[in-house]
């Protein structure tokens, strides 16, 4: 006797378990943060939902942040989980205007990981930290049973000092401000997907994983009127701009022809039915700057190798508040929604 199944036709069961899509950076992540974390842990710092918390210690403003890294595979074209764990946290500090100084390092290692691989990762991590000008000052290591984690999970927390007069927040954005992205988007997301699914692109698609603190320092030193900065990681450029638009309660208008995407990323994405605007970046910064200073900031960013393809991609507007709208190459308008789940390759 075959089972008779009654279909529940109403709204699908609200997530009773944590799903991978809760970590994708889009709406599900947002809901999780608000309904579980903010609810239980909430305080003024967390409620700001910034990349780093800004804490006043006597006369100094300290930026303090944390991030965990669980990427698989742990070695990928363009980097590895070690390099990523330094760059990600350094960037979270740098976009707040902080000079990144010290990192802590927490490792959860799966029993059975070859020491040689761990050594390679720490070599990469150490090198990246030195290049970025930060020091790992405290650490912890735990080893768990085989199967309890996927090879290695890394947590880094970081602190940096913010110059006293610097105040970067989405709430400082005004209509007319320009939006700059420091380079082509989607590289990290497609590189990880290809590596994980063994899609052998040749040459392999490489992550853009890098530290942005020197570039950002250069931008801030121009004296330009910077309103805020973000690094568009999980969820991609579109998701991060949606967050900015919502937090500022203003609209953002993008111009499709100005969006930088590498041809090979475009090609791979179109083959897999993916949109580069929703794929993660680990070496890019979005800068919102007053219109009058936009050109100057663009020129400064382009001086850096990692910023040579920077582009002014759009502007802040008082139309369609909290929404991101893109003007296509044909002159039509398209709403860019926030990512809902995680980007999946499509055939249909």
């Amino acid at each position, binding site marked *: 006797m*075959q*089972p*008779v*199944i*009654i*279909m*529940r*036709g*109403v*709204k*699908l*069961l*609200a997530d009773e*378990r*944590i*799903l*991978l*899509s809760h970590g994708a950076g889009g*709406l*599900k992540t947002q809901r999780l943060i608000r309904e579980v974390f903010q609810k239980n842990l909430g305080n003024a710092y967390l409620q700001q939902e910034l990349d780093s918390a800004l804490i006043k210690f006597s006369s100094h403003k300290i930026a303090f942040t944390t991030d965990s890294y669980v990427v698989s595979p742990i070695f990928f074209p363009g980097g590895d989980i070690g390099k990523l764990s330094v760059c990600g946290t350094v960037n979270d500090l740098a976009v707040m205007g902080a000079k990144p100084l010290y990192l802590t390092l927490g490792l959860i290692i799966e029993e059975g990981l070859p020491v040689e691989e761990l050594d390679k990762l720490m070599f990469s991590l150490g090198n990246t930290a030195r290049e970025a000008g930060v020091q790992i000052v405290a650490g912890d290591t735990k080893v768990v049973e085989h199967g309890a984690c996927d090879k290695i999970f890394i947590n880094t927390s970081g602190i940096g000092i913010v110059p006293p007069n610097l105040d970067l927040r989405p709430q400082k954005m005004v209509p007319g401000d320009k939006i700059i992205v420091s380079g082509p988007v989607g590289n990290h997301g497609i590189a990880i997907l290809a590596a994980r*699914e063994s*899609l052998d692109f040749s040459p392999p698609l490489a992550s853009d994983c890098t530290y942005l603190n020197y570039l950002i320092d250069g931008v801030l030193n121009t004296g330009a009127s910077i309103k805020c900065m973000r690094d568009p990681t999980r969820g991609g450029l579109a998701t991060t701009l949606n967050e900015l638009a919502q937090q500022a309660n203003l609209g953002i208008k993008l111009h499709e022809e100005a969006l930088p995407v590498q041809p090979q990323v475009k090609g791979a994405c179109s083959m*897999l*039915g993916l949109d580069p605007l929703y794929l993660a970046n680990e070496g890019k910064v979005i800068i919102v700057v007053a219109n009058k200073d936009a050109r100057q900031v663009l020129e400064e960013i382009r001086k850096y190798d990692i910023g040579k393809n920077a582009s002014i991609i759009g502007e802040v507007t008082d*139309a*369609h508040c909290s*929404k991101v*709208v893109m003007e*296509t*190459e*044909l*002159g*039509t*308008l*398209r*709403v860019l*929604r926030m990512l*809902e*789940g995680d980007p*999946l*390759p*499509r*055939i*249909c």
Partner: protein
Amino acid sequence: MLKLKLNKITVKKLLKGINNESHIRIMEVCGTHTMAIAKAGIKQLLPANIELISGPGCPVCVTAQEDIERILILAKKREVIITTFGDMLRVPGSTGSLQEMQAQGADVRIVYSPLDAVNLARNNPEKEIVFLAVGFETTTPTVAFALEDAHKTGVDNFSIVCMHKLVIPALKALLSDQETEIHGFLLPGHVSTIIGTIPYEFIPREYQRACVVSGFEPGDILESILFISRQLENADYKVENQYKRGVKTEGNKIALEIMDKYFTPFNSLWRGMGEIKDSGLRLRPEYVQYDAIFKFGLQDTLVQLAPSGCICGNILKGILKPEECALFSKMCTPAFPVGPCMVSSEGACAASYYYAGGEVIGR
């Protein structure tokens, strides 16, 4: 060179050629056209008298609930690895979606090509690899080749849940349904690379509708709409091939042959449209060892659908629009989809949800 870029000026010129002022309803049959139209904001460029309606060419959207439930049963089996295109991962079933089953420990893997599923079977002899064979005629030949690969190399721990469907029977069903008033069809360019243009000829001949086989660039779609508009203006109904660079009149003979070798048509159930004669494919009896439903004894799975307010059926037939559904963007969103038109990113509802709004946003 093979991506044909259209600039704003050429768009204006192309649109000027659309002189027809009567109210024209054009159905884009293929989900990829729905996406392309939504992404490019084509509806914003067209004169108000031209209406574009999405059709049933979304394989995920029209997959019967019975098939979804069977897949979920298979996913729960410890010895089974489900291999699938990404599109199927979030389709809701009574116990969740495949993605949710993954969270509960089911082994579900996304593959880019059906051949990857056969390779997985080869490398995991102790497991049963089940591939979710969904798609229209563009995809079916690739699955047929995967079966050929399994067959020729003796891979017997590989099977498919065969949900392939055919476009022509669906078009016949649509046209004989009095409720759907469609003047012209934007025909699926990629399906046509396989089946050619001749199978569509019954449409102008028996039903006097305009037909254009269209490519997927915004320029292709606009030009195809122009061709349809002209056909209607001159009452000159025919099957025109706008996608000449990709579609040959005779299609792809090798693809048609291998499809025929492994599959045979049968009356299949289309979600929202009911049973359509000869509209689905199933494995020929001599290849039944590759049919996962038979292999695992799930032929008699029954499903009763509780009413939910979902009107995907009417949306697939082009009778109603996503915005006319009471659940659209309130109870039914891509994060919490009620019906399949919202789950598949090329479903009419998902396309409308993600990309629309451009029409109402002022400059």
